[in-house]
């Protein structure tokens, strides 16, 4: 599956309060959470995003709270992929569980500038920067987690287990 979109570049240690501040945690609705995505970073940030745009971040993206509302708000905002130097642990796990694609690329995130047009092939683990013509590769997903993804996420994985 290939995803084409514009890169939105953010910095290091983008925390879950920046992604979705606590005052919005009185709902679990993806559209409502999506409408307020990144409101803790900058008021009205969401206005610049189109469906299938791609978040590009420096290290430790998603640090802080365990709130699953964070990946849900990104998905609700129409952002299917986050590419980062590294992810915070709980957010990484939540992303997979929610079906948000997370690609860890180390220092190569520097090659993806704000506003660049990107094409992401999550299966192959490749990100093509259409603007610069450069392609970068990402760390493979561990087989156990790939198994969860192949089931269609953790909900389906547990559903299968319960049925057995």
């Amino acid at each position, binding site marked *: 599956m290939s995803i084409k979109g514009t890169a939105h570049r953010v910095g290091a*240690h983008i*925390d879950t*309060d*920046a992604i979705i*501040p*606590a*005052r919005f*945690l*009185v*709902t*679990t609705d993806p559209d409502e959470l999506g409408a307020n995505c990144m409101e*803790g*970073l900058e*008021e009205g940030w969401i206005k610049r995003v189109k469906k299938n745009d791609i978040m590009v971040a420096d*290290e*430790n993206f998603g*640090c*802080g*709270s*365990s*709130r*699953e*509302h964070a*990946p*849900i708000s990104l998905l609700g905002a129409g952002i299917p992929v986050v590419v980062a130097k*590294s992810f*915070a*642990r*709980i957010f990484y*796990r*939540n992303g997979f*569980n*929610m079906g948000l694609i997370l690609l860890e690329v180390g220092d190569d995130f520097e090659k993806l500038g704000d506003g660049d047009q990107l094409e992401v092939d999550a299966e192959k683990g490749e990100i093509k920067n259409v603007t610069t013509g450069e392609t970068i590769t990402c760390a493979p997903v*561990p087989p*156990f*987690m790939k198994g969860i993804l192949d089931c269609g*996420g*953790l*909900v389906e*994985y*547990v*559903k299968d*287990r*319960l*049925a057995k």
Partner: protein
Amino acid sequence: MGKTLAEKILQAHTEETVKEPGQIVRCNVSMVLANDITAPLAIKSFKAMGADQVFDKDKVALVCDHFTPNKDIDSAEQVKVVREFAHEKNITHYYEGGEVGVEHALLPELGLVGPADIVIGADSHTCTYGGLGAFATGMGSTDIAGGMALGETWFKVPPTIKVEIEGTPGKYMGAKDYILNLIGTIGVSGALYKALEFSGSVVDNLSIEGRMTIANMAIEAGGKVGLFPVDAKTLEYCKAAGRTGDVEMRADADANYERVVKINVTGMKPQIACPHLPDNVKPVDEVKDMQIHQAVIGSCTNGRIEDLREAAAVLKGRKADKNVRLIVLPATPNIWKQALREGLIETFMESGAIVGPATCGPCLGGHMGILAGGERAIATTNRNFKGRMGSLESEVFLSSPAVAAASAITGIITDPEAL
């Protein structure tokens, strides 16, 4: 090769052989936790999984502590979802109203978590129970739903960083200062995907409450868990909380550590985490005289009885500055009662404090102490992210209870030694 504490506990909960960091193992869990923000999502996922009953009605804790007492209709609706689920599934450990406490202070107090347990919680500060020697870690709601349904989860075995804390602490130095110093040293991603294991003479001398304060903030360095050895002191605490059968536990002498970080507390000044990350840590001398508008003493980091005693000792016979809102939130009903019996509540009231119920409210900018633009708070909480306690234009400084109390008195960030 010997095992670290993290490896030992994981091994005790899995049929697989724990060999090395990076390996993925499936473990059974001792307790699964969620709160009023994260439980509604977990319940949604639990239902989507087609689960009928929780794996064990005595091993699920649902604690409505974040937006409670309910701040608005939406938060009341969320708690209603949790309450109805708890009743329907006959869950033993459901807490709200006068029974509720800040989850990570409440569960240890009730003896629901302890040594060598594996605890997963839909709250990032679940790592607090590492102070009791539990492999306890935060996860998202869907992982918690899986845990509630199956009674197990998966872990990547973490590499361990050993932290040795040695030296002779000064009068107003304590657990909060040591953990802030560590986070300042290794950074907010310094322990990313890793376990922290604490040792050294300072750790041996720390109370269990102090150890929980340190373990609580392991996540602020990116850590999966913050673990303390289980010694006689731990067993005494657990016994008083009504637990039986706990035994001492230490890492093997030949355990494999990725790195050793040594901290010497001799001569160290109280530590302050400045905006907007918990690793922006400076000694109090470098930030003194900074004007504050609010001081918050409470939370899962520093809302226990020992913390309240520390703050009250500084506040006794003194008044908070008239330009400072001093908010004190004992973390559980039992802590509240104890503080009342000891006269601490009276001390707080006489100093001009607002003494509130057990709630996480202000820590996450939920309610009961939101900051306006341009306002600055000093808090004994665990995070100072931009906008964490309210306006994006506000600032939060993190400190120990003694420093927060001293600062409330003067209206500027203050070393209690200077009072």
